[in-house]
């Protein structure tokens, strides 16, 4: 479920939804239900095709309503591993030309192509879907005195806020997001995910409750190599969004999940917090829980809650944060959404429901449900990704 947000950049998606002016549009009606999330990662960095993760979404079909599905895959572009892979939705050819010209001002485009898709009756009205492998020009970085990640992040923000008909929905190295309007299993089929080999996959089936179901609003939401899939509803969305805007992050995708991605980027990349510290900010323990801890832990948790109080995420959520070389699963501190974790050999599985895990691997071991606010962090062995 996702939260109210209404600033229509595109009016046209309401027509796509088949809801005219007379009827209530999405956002004015409320459909209580839950999204689906899942992930699989190999600690040894062994590559898996997309078939397993697609299979995980099938038993959770009821958790989606066909208005969004998507996947993030890590390790899929080894031949371009040094370049940022920009995945984009483009309204038309003119938009692509525009965007390409804009990119060339600051970056070298080493390769550009349409992302291969399969024609299927389950997925319609697709925009142009392209990927650009880019690297920022050294001269630009030197004159702006920023590193290449900051340059790419700023470029993505600029395109998404200012360029008509273009959305960058994935911008990391050696990873990519694939998303669309449709059920997740159909989205996986549409993008031919069986052709990709990744050491880590995350997935999402969307059931938008208060915000439009459109291509850019599907999960995962990604910036650089951080991607988020999310089941929940952020009550603190506007407080979080306003805080993030002070640091140049613009929420443009008409859904609450986007802000979690920017919070992760801000706290991990810019503030250099650890994943555990990130969890202690966005799913901060209650003061009474903090009080029961030892003195050092109390001081740390108090510090994080105080300094980043505007980044506490309230309301129900379960999220999976993907990043280069690992992932992290986290529930809100009250655990108002479900999440299960299990292992089998080198693999770790995470999903909203145990059935989804068993669809990937029937004989999993060490199955458990993490407590609210307790991060589950999985890392691939150094040198294996």
């Amino acid at each position, binding site marked *: 479920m996702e939260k109210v947000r209404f600033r229509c950049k595109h009016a046209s998606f309401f027509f796509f939804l088949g809801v005219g002016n007379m009827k209530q549009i999405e956002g004015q009606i409320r459909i209580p239900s839950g999204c689906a999330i899942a992930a699989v990662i190999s600690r040894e960095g062994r590559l898996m095709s997309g078939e397993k993760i697609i299979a995980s979404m099938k*038993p*959770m*079909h*009821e958790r989606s309503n066909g208005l969004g599905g998507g996947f993030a895959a890590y390790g899929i572009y080894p031949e371009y591993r040094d370049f940022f892979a920009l995945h984009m939705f483009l309204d038309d050819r003119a938009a692509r030309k525009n965007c390409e010209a804009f990119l060339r001002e600051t970056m070298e485009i080493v390769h550009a192509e349409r992302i291969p898709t399969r024609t299927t009756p389950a997925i319609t009205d697709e925009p142009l879907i392209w990927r650009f492998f880019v690297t920022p020009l050294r001269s630009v970085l030197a004159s702006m005195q920023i590193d290449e990640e900051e340059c790419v992040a700023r470029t993505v923000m600029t395109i998404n806020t200012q360029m008509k008909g273009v959305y960058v929905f994935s911008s990391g190295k050696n990873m990519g997001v694939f998303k669309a309007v449709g059920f997740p299993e159909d989205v996986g089929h549409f993008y031919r995910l069986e052709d990709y080999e990744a050491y880590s996959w995350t997935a999402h089936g969307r059931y938008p409750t208060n915000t439009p179901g459109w291509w850019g609003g599907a999960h995962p939401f990604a910036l650089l190599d951080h991607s988020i899939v999310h089941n929940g509803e952020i009550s603190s969305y506007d407080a979080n969004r306003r805080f993030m805007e002070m640091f140049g992050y613009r929420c443009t995708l008409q859904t609450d999940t986007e802000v979690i991605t920017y919070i992760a980027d801000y706290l991990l990349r810019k503030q250099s917090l650890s994943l555990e510290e990130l969890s202690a900010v966005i799913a901060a323990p209650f003061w*009474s*829980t903090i009080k*029961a801890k030892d003195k050092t832990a109390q001081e740390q948790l108090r510090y994080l809650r105080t300094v980043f109080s505007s980044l506490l995420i309230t309301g129900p959520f379960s999220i999976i944060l993907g990043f280069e070389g690992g992932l992290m699963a986290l529930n809100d501190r*009250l*655990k108002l959404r*479900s999440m*299960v974790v299990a292992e089998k050999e080198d693999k770790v599985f995470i999903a909203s*429901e*145990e*059935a*989804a895990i*068993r*669809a990937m691997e029937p004989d999993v071991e060490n*199955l458990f*449900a993490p*407590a*609210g606010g307790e991060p589950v962090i999985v890392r691939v062995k150094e040198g294996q990704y």
Partner: protein
Amino acid sequence: MFHIDASQLDHRQLNEQIQHHSGELLITGCLGQRFIGAGAEQGHLEIAGTPGNALGAYLNGACIEVRGNAQDAVGDTMNDGRIIVHGSIGDAAGYAMRGGEIYVQGDAGYRAGIHMKAYGDKLPALVIGGAAGSFLGEYQAGGVILVLGLSKTGRPIVSNFPCTGMHGGKLYLRSDCRDLLLPEQVEARPASEEERAGIGRYVRNYCAYFGGDQDEIMASPYTVITPDTKNPYRQMYVLN
């Protein structure tokens, strides 16, 4: 015993087949189908695999036995019957149940027994063999919740914030509960002889389903938690 292979069935098809076969029923290949046995009044339903959410919702007399784990909201609003889980159970088990019994061999997730109630001769029971997650018995208004803490995972018998908003019923923990933090509006004390005899029935059933030594399990201290009538909820939200 009638056999249904659920591996190719969605929840609607599966539940239609279940409705057409009262009596002894075995479901295999179950994977995430929701609402299994919802509202069922009679018969015995055995499930191999992982049933989906809201298993036995509104159950009204039938018995459901799961050979494995169950997911969220098992026995939601159930009125009568029995659910036996040979494994662990997800969040919100026995949500608002008002009759019947649920037995869980292993652990329970968050909010087990939330909003349980009782009325007239209806006295629901939720028996958890392992440990329970946070918010156990949240807003409990009736019935019996019993946690045995038999699992060897090292987890505490119950996590944070048990009995928040408790209004009625009884919650038993097989523990002396020395370090347990409870809200001010409830009262914890060692179970009386009469109360211990009362829960003996549930422990006997538990051992019959899952094994274990009833005398050994009963030999431990038990704590019973009930609402504190001398300290009712006041002025939490409005002046009253």
